[in-house]
C-alpha cells in the first residue's frame, strides 16, 4: 500500500509540474510565434523564453525522484 502512495505521489508531482510547464509554454509559444512573424531576429531569444518554464517540470522530476528514492520505492 505504501509503495502505491509513493508511486502516486511521484506521478502527481510530475503530472502537475508537466501541466504547468505545458500551459506556460503554450502561452509563451503563441506569443513567440506572433513576435517572430514581425521580428525574425528574435528567434534565439524566443527559444530561450520557451525553454524557461521547463524548470518547473525538471524540478518536478527531481522531486519525484527524491520521493521515490527517499520513500523507499526505488
Amino acid at each position, binding site marked *: 500500500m505504501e509503495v502505491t502512495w509513493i508511486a502516486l505521489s511521484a506521478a502527481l508531482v510530475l503530472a502537475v509540474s508537466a501541466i504547468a510547464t505545458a500551459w506556460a509554454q503554450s502561452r509563451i509559444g503563441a506569443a513567440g510565434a506572433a513576435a517572430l512573424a514581425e521580428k525574425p531576429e528574435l528567434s*534565439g*531569444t524566443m*527559444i*530561450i523564453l520557451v*525553454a*524557461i518554464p*521547463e*524548470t518547473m517540470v*525538471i*524540478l518536478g*522530476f*527531481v522531486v519525484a*525522484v527524491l520521493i521515490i*528514492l527517499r520513500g523507499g520505492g*526505488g
Partner: protein
Amino acid sequence: MIIPMVKVRVLGPRERIDDALGALQDFGLVHLGDASSLAWLGSPDVGPREQRRQRYVRRAVDDLTEALKFLGDVPRPEPPVPHDQIDLRKLVRSARRVAGQARSLDARRQELEDERRELERYRDFLVAIRPALERLAGSPRLTSYAVVIPAGSRTAVDALTTSLRAEAGPDFATATRELAGGDLAVLLVLPRAFAERLESRLAESRVPEIPMPAGYAGKPIGEVVPAMLQRIESVPVELASLERQRRLLGEAHRRDFARQRAALHDWLRLADARQRCGVTARAFALEGWLPFARTGDLQTLLRDLAGDAMVVEELAREAWPAEDAPVVLLNPRLFRPFEAIVRILPLPVYGTMDPTPFVAVFFPMFFGMILGDIGYGMFLAGIGLWLHHRSRPGSVARTISEIAGPCAAFSIIFGALYGEFLGDLGSRWFGLQALAFDREESVMAALAVAAGIGTVHVVLGLAVGAVTAWRHERRHAIGRGVSGVMVLLVIVVLLAALDVLPGALFTPAVVALLVSFPVLVAAEGFLAPLELLATLGNVLSYTRIMALGTASVMLAVVANRMVGMIGSTVVGFIFALLFHLVNFAIGLFSPSIHVMRLHFVEFFGKFYSPGGRRYEPFGHWHPNQGA
C-alpha cells in the same frame, strides 16, 4: 575579450572634408559618430540639387540590384568605377532594359519548364501507343481514343472496358500506362461504329477525365501524339537557347553593373558620412571610434594626406559613455566559434566582460555532462568532421562543426566517466565500467554533481559580476561578492545539516550568514534577500543536467531492450537503431537549448550588460553587406 577602442576627433579645413572622408573610407576602420550635433558646430548644408542627386543614385542602385538579381550577382566585384565617370541617366536606362530582357527570358524559361514537366508525364504512354496509332491510321474501320484518369478510377474503367469488349467483340482493345504522379493514361481502340457510343458510356460510367495539356485537348489522338512527341524533343532545344541568351546577357553586363553599383554605394556612404561631420565656416570635425592599436595608423594616414592641416585628437575615456562605443569581440581561435552563441543575445556594452571564454569552457562541458555517452559522442564527432569538411570557412555550418567538436569530446569523456556506450550496451557487450558513477543507478550522485556544478557556475557568475562592477559601482560589486559568499555558506549549512560535511561547520556557517546578511542589505538594498533566494533557485535549475541526462540514458536503455522485446531479432535491431537515432537527435537538440538557457538566464544574469553597439566601420561597400 572586447578589444579596447579609442574615440578620435579629426579636425581640418572645410574644403578638405571630402579628402579626409575618402581617406577614411579607404582606411575602413573608423566607426563614425555624429559630430554634427556638437554644440559649436553645424551640420553641412545639403541643397535641393544634392538631395535630388542622392535620390536618383538610390534609385539607380535599386535598378542595378534588380538587374543583377536576374543576371546573377558578382561575389567579388572588381574595384568600383570612379563615380564621376558614371553617366547615371544612361546607366539607369541600360539597367532597366537589361532587367526587362532578363525578366522576360526567365518568364519564358519558366513556361517552357512547366510545359516540359507536363509533357514528360505522357512520354512513356505516347511512345508505347505510337506504333498502334500508326497502324490504325490507315484503317477505315477502327478508331481510337485516349483518356487520362485518376488512379482511383481504375475499377470504373475496367468495368467500362469489359462492357465495351462484350459489345464490340475482338475488335476492341485497350492499353493502359501509369503516368508520373499516379494518373492512368488509357488508349481505347474500337470500331468506328461504336465511337458515338463510347462517349456516352464514359459519361454514364462517371469516369472523371483529366484534361490533356493545353493546346492538345479536343484534337484527334492521331494528331496529338506526334505533335506532343515532337514538342518533347523541341522544348529542351528552346531551353538551351534561352539559357545561352541569358548567359550572354549576363556576360555582357554583370561585371560592369556590379562595379558601377559598388561605386554608387560608396558615393552614398560618403554622402551619409558627410552628414555626420560637424562644420564651421572654415573647418570641419568628425568623430569616431577605432581599435586602440590602430590609432597610430590613422594619424600617419592623415598626416600623409594633409600634413599639419589635419589633426587627429584622442578623446579621453571619461569624455564618452560606454554605451556609445562600438563593440568588437576578439577571442583565441579555439573560443571564436562560441561567439556565435553569445551573439544570440545583444552584444555586451563596451567596458564590460565578454563572456565567450566562459561559454567556450562550460557550454561543451555541460553538453557532455548531459549527453554523456561514448557512442553518441563518437557519432557527433563524425557529424562534426563531415560538416567541417563540407563547409566553407566563416559559414554557419563551419561554426556549428567547430562547436560540435568540443561537445563531442566532452560527451566521450563523460561517457567514459558514466560507463555508457549507447546506453548500457557498452557494459553488456564489452563489460564497460563507470569510472565515476552509473547514471542509471546513482540518480542521487548525478543530482549532487549537477547541483555542485551549478553552485560553481553561479558563484563564478557573481564573482565576474563583482569584478566587472568594481571599476564603476563598488557598492554593487561588494553586493555581488557577498551574494556569492552567502550562496556558498547556504550550501555549507545544508550539507552540514545533512551530515555530508562535518557538523562542526554548521554553527560557524550560520553565524557567517547572519553577519553577511546586513552587509548584503546595505550594499544592494532591501530587495537583496529576494535576489539571493532567486540565486539559490538558479543553482537548483542546474539539476536539469541530471534530469535530462537520466532521461537520455533511460531512452538509450529502452532502445537496447527492443532487440529482445520484439520477436524477430532483425526487426528488434532495426527498431533499436531507429530509437537510438531519435534519442541522439533529442540528445543534440535538448542539451543545446537547456545549456544555452543555463548560460543566458542563470550565468549571464549575474554580470552581463547587453546593449553594446555593433562595430560598423566606414569603408567601401561589399555585396555581402547589403544596403
